[in-house]
């Protein structure tokens, strides 16, 4: 495997323009001769499918849900960043670029991040044209709010449902192309393998989730936009169906996997309350615009929050980080919460929670203003906890939320397999070791609307692609492998359910590869996962048959992949002997318990090459060059 980022030459600010000019174009009349497969219909996949179809490509789009409108981008609450500078605060493309690079603790590529900031403004324009009902000021112009890691208000939002509205915008554009016959949509299909012929991605194998039929689909290029792998932890804010399987299958077929240990743990989620719990719910970062985070000063203080006087509260984020206050980046806020709880200052029944208090904001602005900004979030909180956050402070604790790692892609968003493009959360590209709030929506839509339409053209125009069909051996083999694995899963007939193994894996990952890590724990966890995986393949029970709607079988396949992939996360965490962003190895910290990077030795993208089942993967490094920003100890004080 050879890593080549293919970053265009020239000054940072001119790279994208120059690259777009240099990319080969497909003649408009020839686009109809190319078939493109898009897997996943979130912000990245939905926008890519629609935009590619508008250009004239024949697009086949696949999703596991019953409708493309349900992908998990829909659950993003808070907002989407753009460098519009509508607030006249001195924002600029350069500042958005700088904040994102710094927020990621200097582990992302300058050129990619700069391009992301450049196209951010086009995204807002595009979405407004589609009818996305963004929040507006009294004058009718677009409103903004602040998110973590930035000192300007650059986040556009639609109440607490920004992801929903952006996704429905992309979905409507996609549905228009379906009506035009440019996109064929395949819902309730799960990708089980990728087909590589002569080193080029030429198709996929999917299981029809209703009938169980294994189908093969050919194409000239394949685009994966299948999201992140936070569900390796079982409990996360991701939807139940989110999984690593598509990108993990690509990894096994030769796509490099980068920075798998970079997992974002979001500071404000509703705390875990029972062993039966199936998922965790995020409370948007936007709440930290008005909510103040605190714990009692004295460990073990069990009084109700309103009985604890001001003088006995510790607003620890405001105290430790006076210039960013409650709006420090997510990794910093999460570790601080854990640190307080570790000292016995956590609140609630479990002691694993901190307060997020709106009393001051309600006193200052009035209840109706707070209701208008966060009403649906407060309602959601009350539905789950039966407590009214207008009266009592919310209780929150960090939870796994997003994964910065993903398949390796070059500047064209192409993986190490020719013709296999990876967009959105599924790739590793833009967020380094920590993603800033409201940047995931920006990246998904940037990739889908404004990057892949150009770069895929460059590939298709400049690459000889022989005619193929699905009777080729590679298709038959991939389909057979998929069938064999399904048969195997159904035949074990053991004594433990799929969820049992998934929960166990999740606990191992959370305890040893979560907010803080150490070498001893990681090594132990690796062994535990190997043993758990072995037991899974001997003792799992998967009821029913293949030839039916079988949700247990779907989950079994995904958990089998998580059980292999979790080990790769640990291998990656062990290999990175520094702390950076979300990756906090206890052996590498500053005197103030902040992450301590080692730029001399670890300023690289760690990319893993698959070498076979239960064989050690091989590490390849893309060294990151920082020519435009100065590497500093990240400080939010």
């Amino acid at each position, binding site marked *: 495997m050879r890593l080549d980022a293919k970053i265009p030459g020239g000054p940072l600010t001119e790279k994208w323009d120059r690259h777009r000019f240099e990319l080969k174009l497909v003649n408009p009349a020839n686009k109809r001769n190319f078939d493109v497969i898009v897997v996943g219909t979130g912000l990245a996949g939905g926008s890519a499918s*629609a935009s590619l179809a*508008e250009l004239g490509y024949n697009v086949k789009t696949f999703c596991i*849900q*019953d*409708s*493309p*409108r*349900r992908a*998990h981008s*829909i659950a993003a609450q808070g907002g989407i960043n753009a460098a519009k500078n*509508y607030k006249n605060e001195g924002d600029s493309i350069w500042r958005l670029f700088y904040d994102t690079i710094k927020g990621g603790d200097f582990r992302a590529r300058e050129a990619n991040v700069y391009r992301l900031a450049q196209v951010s*403004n*086009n995204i*807002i*324009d595009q979405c*407004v*044209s*589609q*009818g996305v*009902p*963004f*929040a*507006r000021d009294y*004058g*009718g112009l*677009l409103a903004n709010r602040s998110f973590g890691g930035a000192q300007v208000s650059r986040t556009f939002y*639609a109440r607490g*449902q920004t992801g*929903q*509205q952006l996704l*429905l915008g992309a*979905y*409507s*554009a996609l*549905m*228009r192309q379906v*009506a035009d016959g440019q996109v064929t949509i395949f*819902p309730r299909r799960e990708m089980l393998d990728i087909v590589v012929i002569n080193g080029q991605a030429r198709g996929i194998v999917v299981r029809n989730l*209703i009938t169980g039929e294994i189908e093969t689909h050919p194409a000239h290029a394949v685009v994966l936009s299948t999201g992140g792998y936070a569900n390796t932890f079982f409990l996360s804010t991701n*939807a*139940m*169906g989110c999984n690593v399987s598509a990108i993990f299958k690509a990894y096994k077929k030769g796509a490099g996997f980068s920075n798998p240990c970079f997992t974002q743990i979001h500071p404000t989620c509703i705390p875990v309350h*029972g062993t*039966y719990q*199936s*998922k965790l719910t*995020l409370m948007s970062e936007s709440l930290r615009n008005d909510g103040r985070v605190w714990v009692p000063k004295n460990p073990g203080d069990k009084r109700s929050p309103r009985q604890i006087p001001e003088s006995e509260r510790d607003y620890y984020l405001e105290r430790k980080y006076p210039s960013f206050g409650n709006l420090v980046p997510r990794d910093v806020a999460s570790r601080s919460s854990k640190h307080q709880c570790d000292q016995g200052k956590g609140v609630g029944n479990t002691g694993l929670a901190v307060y997020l208090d709106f009393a001051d904001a309600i006193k200052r602005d009035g209840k109706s203003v707070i209701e208008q900004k966060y009403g649906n979030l407060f309602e*959601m909180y009350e*539905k*789950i906890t*039966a407590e009214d956050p207008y009266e009592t402070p919310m209780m929150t604790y960090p939870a796994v939320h997003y994964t910065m790692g993903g398949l390796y892609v070059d500047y064209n968003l192409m993986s190490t397999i020719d013709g296999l493009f990876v967009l959105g959360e599924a790739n590793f590209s833009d967020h380094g070791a920590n993603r800033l709030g409201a940047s995931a929506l920006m990246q998904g839509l940037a990739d889908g609307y*404004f990057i892949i339409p150009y770069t895929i053209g460059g590939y298709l125009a400049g690459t000889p692609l022989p005619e193929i069909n699905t009777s080729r051996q590679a298709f038959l083999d991939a389909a057979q492998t998929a069938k064999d694995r399904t048969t195997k899963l159904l035949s074990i007939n053991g004594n433990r*359910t799929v969820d049992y193994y998934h929960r166990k894996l999740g606990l191992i990952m959370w305890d040893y590869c979560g907010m803080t890590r150490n070498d001893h724990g990681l090594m132990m966890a690796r062994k535990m996962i190997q043993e758990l995986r072995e037991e899974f393949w001997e003792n799992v*029970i998967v*009821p*029913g048959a293949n030839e*039916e*709607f079988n*949700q*247990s079988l779907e989950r079994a396949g995904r958990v089998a992949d998580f059980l292999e992939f979790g080990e790769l996360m640990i291998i990656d965490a062990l290999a990175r002997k520094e702390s950076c962003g979300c990756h906090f190895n206890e052996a590498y910290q500053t005197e103030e318990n902040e992450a301590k990077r080692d730029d001399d030795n670890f300023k690289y993208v760690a990319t893993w090459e698959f070498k076979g089942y239960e064989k050690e993967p091989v590490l390849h490094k893309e060294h990151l060059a920082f020519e435009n920003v100065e590497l500093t100890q990240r400080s939010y004080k």
Partner: protein
Amino acid sequence: MTKTINLTLKIWRQKGSDTKGQLETYHAGNISTDMSFLEMIDIINEQLTLDGKNPISFDHDCREGICGMCGAVVNGRPHGSEKGTTLCQLHMRHFSDGDTVVIEPWRSKAFPVIKDLAVDRSAMDQIIQAGGYISVNTGGAPEANTTPIPQETAEIAMDAAACIGCGACVASCPNASAMLFAGAKISHLALLPQGKPEAAKRALAMVSKMDGLGFGNCANERECEAECPKEISITNIARLNREFIKAGFFSSIM
């Protein structure tokens, strides 16, 4: 306060779209009142699996009330009896010890049952395909602040746009009408200046598609509004009708 309750469940079991289904009885013991409704079904399914039986199929994904994937009729009411709540956000604290709970799939000609509680709602995608969009290609958009939109208009459009496409409106309607779903989309887009140029064409196309797919007509029963987990107002149906009539009078598209 957390406590545990015991329930008798009567759940619709149906192997596939072309087989007959029936209610089967299950016992749900020691259910924590902090649990969500779907977590309770998870527990039943874990036990069924260990007993060598087939677990209950049901659609679900985000479990935070926004993806629109989940839904079942609980004691005769789509998503259960809590106002403005999806099934995944319904919590067991709203049930009492000893209750019998009947759980059935959405029932509508346009939503065939796939298995147990899971139904096929692709007809709703087809309604959107008929015109539930603004025809703008990527790249052609003007600067976002070129057209101011009064805050109140944007808020009303957002109220309509909040629809999650779950199909509860159809399931609750005696005529299995999708007017609230279509009305919400038609209103959302017609209210905004960007959506106005196509408003007439959109209303005609979406309504005619809806009729063609076997959804019934609106008879002002208002069940849809009462059961909508996002509390979409029935005024959106009035707006749909206005757009539809306007389109009929003033355009030559009909």
